[in-house]
């Protein structure tokens, strides 16, 4: 296939739609991670929580033959799984990073073990008849050319992801609990001194991050694909963490960064049709993550140096470096 075909692919409505679809399992855990990060409890177990939820959703929906029961079970189990992190870090005082790593390992091994026990297959749950959530066809808009293709017909998780970005922003900046959460993350002693229960707030924050990461996991196994696959998150939980920092720890920034990573991923899919080794193509999203973080930090440093230089020039230009009090 030719480059021309790939380019035409990128500048199409279908490609934009695929960016939105592929961003979904990044946006959701990133928003969750943002909540716990702002509360001062960084959740590096997002990856594991996604896996656990993805697995639970598939299994429960297959056995009950009810998609929604599967979703609910996935959310419940994923959130409970995240609360193990709260238990270990907040109540038993383990290091949060170590506990997070342990959860990730447990999730990856545990899901494969259970998968094998249930289906006799270590690779995927293809033999289980699990469901997928319905697509949402927006009346009228659906038939508009281009726009209809981009905005209509996605799985509900995709709409939910963008909607939740707004909800999370309002929650963090406008509600009392969100305010307490940010206060706890910034100065826990000060928060405690005005009667805010730090441990309670942080537990809630971890639980919410688990809930959102679970949604992300379910969007992989019950929407994006229709089955569970060994390690199907493929590092998305970690890319979500990168999105939080790249997004300057704000809801909008995080959303934007997650969509950027989704774009890189979609790009990889397009290049998949070219005659290049697939490993190179699959590297794109991860390389994009690393490059984006490097650029971000270099830029920040450069800005700081630039500011200092301007400051000094100003002072020298004024001649009276010490004139004018502030």
């Amino acid at each position: 296939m030719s480059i021309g075909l790939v380019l035409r692919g990128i500048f199409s409505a279908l490609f934009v739609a695929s960016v939105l679809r592929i961003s979904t399992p990044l946006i959701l855990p990133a928003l969750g991670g943002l909540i716990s990060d702002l509360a001062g409890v960084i959740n590096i177990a997002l990856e594991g929580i996604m896996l656990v939820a993805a697995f639970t959703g598939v299994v429960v929906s297959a056995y009950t033959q009810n998609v929604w029961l599967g979703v609910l079970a996935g959310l419940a189990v994923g959130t409970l799984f995240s609360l193990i992190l709260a238990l270990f870090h907040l109540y038993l005082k383990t290091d949060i990073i170590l506990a997070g790593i342990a959860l990730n390992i447990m999730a990856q091994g545990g899901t494969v073990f259970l998968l094998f026990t249930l289906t006799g297959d270590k690779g995927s749950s293809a033999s289980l008849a699990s469901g997928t959530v319905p697509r949402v066809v927006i009346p009228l808009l659906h038939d508009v050319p281009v726009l209809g293709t981009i905005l209509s017909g996605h799985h509900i998780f995709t709409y939910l992801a963008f909607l939740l970005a707004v909800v999370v922003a309002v929650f963090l900046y406008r509600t009392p609990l969100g305010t307490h959460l940010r206060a706890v993350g910034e100065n826990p002693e000060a928060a405690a001194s005005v009667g805010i229960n730090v441990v309670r707030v942080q537990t809630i924050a971890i639980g919410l991050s688990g809930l959102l990461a679970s949604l992300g996991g379910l969007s992989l196994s019950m929407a994006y694909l229709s089955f569970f696959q060994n390690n199907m998150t493929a590092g998305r939980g970690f890319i979500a963490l990168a999105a939080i920092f790249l997004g300057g720890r704000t809801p909008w920034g995080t959303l934007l960064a997650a969509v950027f990573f989704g774009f890189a991923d979609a790009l990889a899919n397009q290049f998949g049709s070219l005659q290049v080794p697939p490993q190179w193509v699959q590297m794109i999203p991860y390389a994009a993550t690393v490059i984006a973080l490097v650029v971000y930090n270099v830029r920040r440093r450069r800005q700081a140096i630039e500011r200092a230089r301007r400051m000094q020039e100003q002072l020298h230009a004024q001649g009276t470096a010490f004139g004018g009090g502030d």
Partner: protein
Amino acid sequence: MSSPPLIEMRDIVKVYPNGVVANDGVHFTVEPGEIHALVGENGAGKTTLMKILYGLESPTQGEIRLRGRPVHFRSPLDAIAHGIGMVHQNFMLIPSFTVAENIVLGQEPRHRMLVDREAALQITRELSQQYGLRVEAEAVVDSVPVGMRQRVEILKTLYRGAEILILDEPTAVLTPQETQELFQAIRALVAQGKTVIFITHKLREVKEISDRVTVMRNGRVMGTLPTAQATTDQLARMMVGRDVLLTVEKPPAQPGEPVLEVRDLTYVSETGRTMLRDVRFTVRAGEILGVAGVEGNGQTELVEVLTGLRPATGGSARVRGREILNATPRQVRLSGVAHIPEDRLNNGLALTATINENLIVDRYFRPPFLRGLFIDSQVVQEHGVRLIQAFDIRAPGGDVPVASLSGGNMQKVIVAREFSAEPVLLIAAQPTRGIDVGATEFIRRQLVEKRSGGTAVLLISADLAEVMSLSDRLVVMYEGQITGVFPQVDRVSEEELGLYMLGLRRQTPEEMEAYL
């Protein structure tokens, strides 16, 4: 009998889990509407007593009565509910929140399910007006001056309905002018029926503001008396248990060659804030150059840049002509610089290592300590014995971990190491902060002795009295700049320095040129 006191703390004992007896049978009473000063040296147990009253610590033993009734506070919320508010020694604010958000934090006014920001601003402005405590409701706390942060803390307690205000060393971070402003505010509060407990160790402030004063030493109360009947000397004796000599005998300085020349030094932090701009000064052999200023105006950064702990952004700093900016800390030390760091627990000592080990960390890699590939423990041992004796370090021996020493003796370990390095330049940051009077006297005398022996000394201290009494020349730092230079320290008053420290007055570069 007349009505019971507003607060009565009886026979309070507090033993911390680590075994420190911070309060040892304390009896403390406060009358309604008074300003009660609580004084004592660092470590006397003042903060502990107040934390107990505020429900932050539970007493090991003893009883608290409020208006004659016994109370038990399980958390600050209980104390707040009883009208007690506390402004802590280190501020309890959220830097990225606005003043109004900080004031209502934890008890936000609500509109439906959301925080009512308008109401928070309104509340802040009304409280500010009512008590004459000037704040900018919409400003982000990180960007407002220390004095205002303190007013925010006071308003925070008033918003929660405080009738009794505990102020823990509120003046420690203030300039003389800001202190006066605070005193006015305190008087206004009392005029509106509040009661104030005011912790300090500055006796002049006690005389100025309080009605009664309680002196603590070593976890015990040495006495409570009406301020009008107490003399400063008497209070000082009660505080330290003996006559104190806080003035240092100082022969006139004989400045020699320039040792440290700092020119156009600029430092921008990782977060992009300019912490030092165009700093220039010279320190000569045989003189102490003091740097005065409210903490947080770049002093810490200045020291860390000069000692190789942070990279400078621009400018130069030469020690006997040799550039030391952006060199490693070891290179800086090898050019003859010694450093008594401000944060002695983190930067000055390895707490779990022994005294002997701490005394060689800057020289273990050289003979006679290093012999071949190994450190000669015999030499290290003898070296330790010698310094422990010379610097009067009170310890059972050189083999005990530094963590087991008192604050004053820890500092003496650092002083012993740095002074015995025979530096040409000594940078001393807050050398006597938080240590006992005995060790303070000792360290101050040593500093003067070193300087008289020809060492150049750069002294940074937040204790204005200390810089003024020790320095031969003085500069003031404000917002990362040198804003004033005083070649003769005895010709300037504390109040005048205060104006410079506040940024209300500054000299022009031309005025300073000759003296830098």
